[in-house]
C-alpha cells in the first residue's frame, strides 16, 4: 500500500466493502479489476457511449470517468446486482423478450440506463425515452428492439406495481 492510497468504504450491489485504492483509480477499473464485476464495459472512455453505465446512489454515471473515490459512503449498482436470486429484473426480461441486443457489449450499460430512467420516471414518454437513451450507443441493433424493450419493461413494471 502506497502512501497515496485512500480507504474506500462503499456498498456495491448491496454488499458493504472497504477497499484501499489509489486516488486516481477509476470506478470502472475498481469494479472490473478488483471486484471481478466485468459486466460494465469500457468503450468510448469519454462519457459518450454509456457502455460503462452504473448507478451511484441511483443516478446513472459513466464508471470510466468517475473516480472510485466518489463512491465513498454511496451505493453502487452494476448489472451484476440487478437480478435477485437468479430472478431477472423486469428490464432484463424485457431485453430478452424483444432481443434488444446483438453483440451485447452495450447491453449492460443500456439496461442500467433504462433502469435509472424507469426508477425515476416510470411513465416516461417515448420522447423521454429517446432523449434519455441518446446517451447510450448501440452499433448493432439500430435501437428499434431496444425501444421495444423499454416499452415492454414499462408495462411489466406498471403491472408489477399494480399487482
Amino acid at each position, binding site marked *: 500500500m502506497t502512501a497515496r492510497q485512500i480507504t474506500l468504504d462503499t456498498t456495491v450491489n448491496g454488499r458493504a466493502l472497504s477497499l484501499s485504492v489509489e486516488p486516481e483509480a477509476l470506478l470502472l477499473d475498481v469494479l472490473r479489476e478488483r471486484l471481478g464485476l466485468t459486466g460494465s464495459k469500457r468503450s468510448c472512455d469519454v462519457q459518450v457511449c454509456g457502455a460503462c453505465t452504473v448507478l451511484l446512489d441511483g443516478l446513472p454515471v459513466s464508471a470510466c470517468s468517475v473516480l472510485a473515490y466518489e463512491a465513498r459512503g454511496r451505493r453502487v449498482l452494476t*448489472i451484476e446486482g440487478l437480478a435477485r436470486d437468479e430472478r431477472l429484473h423486469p428490464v432484463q426480461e424485457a431485453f430478452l423478450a424483444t432481443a434488444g441486443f446483438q453483440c451485447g457489449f452495450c447491453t449492460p450499460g443500456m*439496461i442500467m440506463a433504462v433502469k435509472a430512467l424507469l426508477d425515476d420516471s416510470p411513465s416516461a414518454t417515448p420522447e423521454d425515452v429517446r432523449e434519455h437513451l441518446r446517451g447510450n450507443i448501440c452499433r448493432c441493433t439500430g435501437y428499434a428492439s431496444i425501444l421495444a424493450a423499454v416499452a415492454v419493461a414499462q408495462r411489466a413494471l406498471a403491472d408489477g406495481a399494480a399487482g
Partner: protein
Amino acid sequence: MSQPGPLREIGHSVERKDGVAKVTGRAQYLDDLVISGAVYAAIVRSPYAHARILSVERAAAAAVPGVVAALAAADLGALGERPFGTFLKDQRVLARDKARYEGEPVAVVVAEDPATAARAASLVDVAYEPLPPVIDVVRAREPGATLVHDTPPALGRQGRWPTVPGTNVCARVAIEQGDVEQGFRDADVVLERTYTFPRVFHYTLEPHGAVASATPDELTVWTNTGHPYQLRQELADMFELDLARIRIVVPYVGGSFGGKSFPKLEPLAAVLSATVGRPVKVLNGVEGSMRINRRHGARVTLRVGARRDGTLTAKHARVLLDGGAYADLGPVVTEKTSVRLLGPYRVPHYSIQVENVYTTTTPAGAFRSIGGPQSVWATESIMDELAAALDMDPVELRLHNLVSRGESVRPGLRPMDADLGDDLKRLGKAMDEAHAPEAAGRGVAVGISNPAELPISTAIVRLHYDGSATVLCSMVEVGQGLHTVLAQIVAEELSVPRAAVVVVSPDTRVGPYDWSSGASRGVTIVGTAVQRAAQDVRAQLLALAAEVAGVPAAEVAWRDGAVHVGERRVAPAQVIREWYGRPAGEVIGRGYVRNLGRDPAFWEIGMGGAEIAVDRDTGVIQLLSYTGLADVGRAINPQLCEQQDVGAIVMGLGHTLFEEMAYSESGSLLNPSMIEYRVPLVTDLPATLHAVLVENGDGAGPYGAKGMGEGGNLAVAPAIANALARATGVRIRDLPLTPERVWTALREAAARPARP
C-alpha cells in the same frame, strides 16, 4: 434428405441462445478473461502520417519499475522483420524504417500492469524525419506522387492482385464486356458524374485486442477476431509452426462488421509474447481501433448511356479506393467493388476499372459489404439522375432495366436468383403504407452484392446419450444471432429441444475449420455444414438402430422426429444408449461444405426507400420513414433477420448523414474520439422504420435460406440523396449529407439563375 412433416423450429422467432448471458453481464469478452501470468502492452504510435524513424530511445522506459521490456522493431529479431498480410505481405508488427500513418505502432512497452505500461510508454523517445504525407487519393495516384511503399510487397497466401510498381496502386481490377464506346454511341443520353464516399470507422463498441501466449512449440491467442482460421494460417506462417500447434480462442465478440477480420493486433501480441516469454495482453481503446481499420473511401466516376426509352446501353466506371497505409483486405475489396458497380441492371457494354490506392492514413479493410455501399451510392444516385434526364419515373427506369431471375449479371457468376422487379414493387407498396404526409421527397435505391466468399466450412454435431447436443463450428457469434440459428437447425434436424443444444464458441484446437465470419455467409454456408452434420448424426442413428435390432437398413426410418424400427419408435438418445449398452457414448456427425454450386452462393438483395423532409434553414434532413427490403429466401428466425436489416439500415444512416474520419492536410486524424466522431443515436431513428423480408424459399442454404445482414446498408445513402433531390432539386454527390453540406448546396442552388 427428405423433410417429412412441417418445420417446428424453422421460421420462428425463438429466444436468443446468448440472451441471458448478455442481459446479466455474464457474457465474457476478451477484456473480461483472466489469463494468469499475463503482462500488458502499451503501444507507442507515430505522431506523423509519414516519417522516417531515425531512432527509438527506450532505455528510460525500460528502467521504470514494473516494466518487462521496452521494444522497437529491431528488438524483435526475425519476427520483427517478417511481413504479414493475407493478400499482400506489406505490414509488420512494429514499423521498422518508416511510419506510414499517424498512429502506426512504432514501439511498445510491456509491463506488469497496464498503468505502468502506459506511463512508461510516454518515456519512449522516437526521433523522426517527417516525409510528405499522402492523404488525397487523387494526388496519391498522380505521376511522381510520394510512394507509401518504396518496394513492392510480396503476395500473401490468398493474394491474387499484385501492386503496380512505381505507383501507389495497391491493387487494380478491371472488368469489361462488349464495346463500351459502341454502347455510348447507341445511347440517346449519356451522363457522367463523380460521387465520393468518406472514410468511415466501424466503431464496434468493443475495441480490438488480443492476448497471446507463445512457447517454442505452441502459440495460443485469445482474441476477438472474426477470422480464427485465417489468423491461424497467418500466425503459422510467421512463426513457422504447424497449423495444429496454433490455437486461436474466441470469446464473445462485441461487434465486428468486418473490422475484426484478418490479423489485427494478434501478430503483435504473439511476437511480444515470444519476445518476453510471458503471455502478453494488448488492448486498444477506441482511438487505437481508429488506427487499425476503417472502410475504404471512394471516388467513383461513372458514365452511363441510355436510350430514350430508358434502356441502358453502356456503363463506364473509374474508381479510386482509398486503401490507407496497408493492404489488409483491400485487394478483395477492389475486386468486389468492380462487380458491385455493375448493379442489378442489364448493361450490354461496360468497362469498369477499380484501383485501390495506398495513402498515409489508417489502413482500410472489410466493413459490412465490402465495396458495396460505395458502389451502390454511385450507381443508384446516377440512376435517378438518368431518370431525371430522361424525364422518367426513377422506379420505372429501374423496373425497365432490372435483370430477371436466371439472367446473367456477369458471365461466370451465378445467374440472378431473385425476382428483383417483384421485390421493388413490394418495396413500393410497403413505402405507401409507411407514407408520411409531411414528406417532401421520396427516394429508392436497389443494391445487390455477391457475398459468401469461398463457401468452405466444416461442422461437427455431437449427440449425447441424454439427448442433448453440442455443435462445433468456427464461425464467430459477433452478435448476428448465428448460434441461435444453428441451434434451431440442429433442433429441427434431430428433434431435440433447442434448449438442449449448445453451440461452442470457436477454439481452433476443438472446433473444425471455417473460412471466415463475414460476407453474410453464416446461415447459408455454416448453416449448411451444421445441417449436414446433424443429418449425418441421423444417418448414423439409423444404422445403429438397425444394428441393435438386427434388421436390414431398409427397415429403419426417420419419421416424426424419431427413429422407427418397423413400428417401434425409438428416441435418438435411446438409440445411442441401446447401441453402447449403457448410458454412455455419443454419435458424432460431420458436415462439410466446399461449394454450393455457382459463385456467389447467393445474391444478397438490399433495397430501401426513404421519405424525408428538409429543414431549409439549417440543412437538416429529417428522415420521416425508411423501408428496407431483404430477399432472404427463408427467414429461419424472422426476428433476427429483421433486426439485422434494421441494424444495417441505421448503420447506413451513419455514412449517409454524419460519419467521416476527418484528416488534416498533414495527415492527422482530427476526430479520433466518440466526442467528435458521430455515429447514429437513438434520436436519429425515423418515426417509421420497417424491414420487409421476402421469402421465396429459393436460397442455396438450409430450407431455402440466403444470407443477409449486409444488404440493409447498401441502399440507405442513395435512397436519401435521391429523396433530397426530389424534395429540393439539389443533387449532392459527396457523402455524408451533413446539414452544412445540404445548406450550402441549397444556397448555391438558390443563387444560381433559374434555367431558361
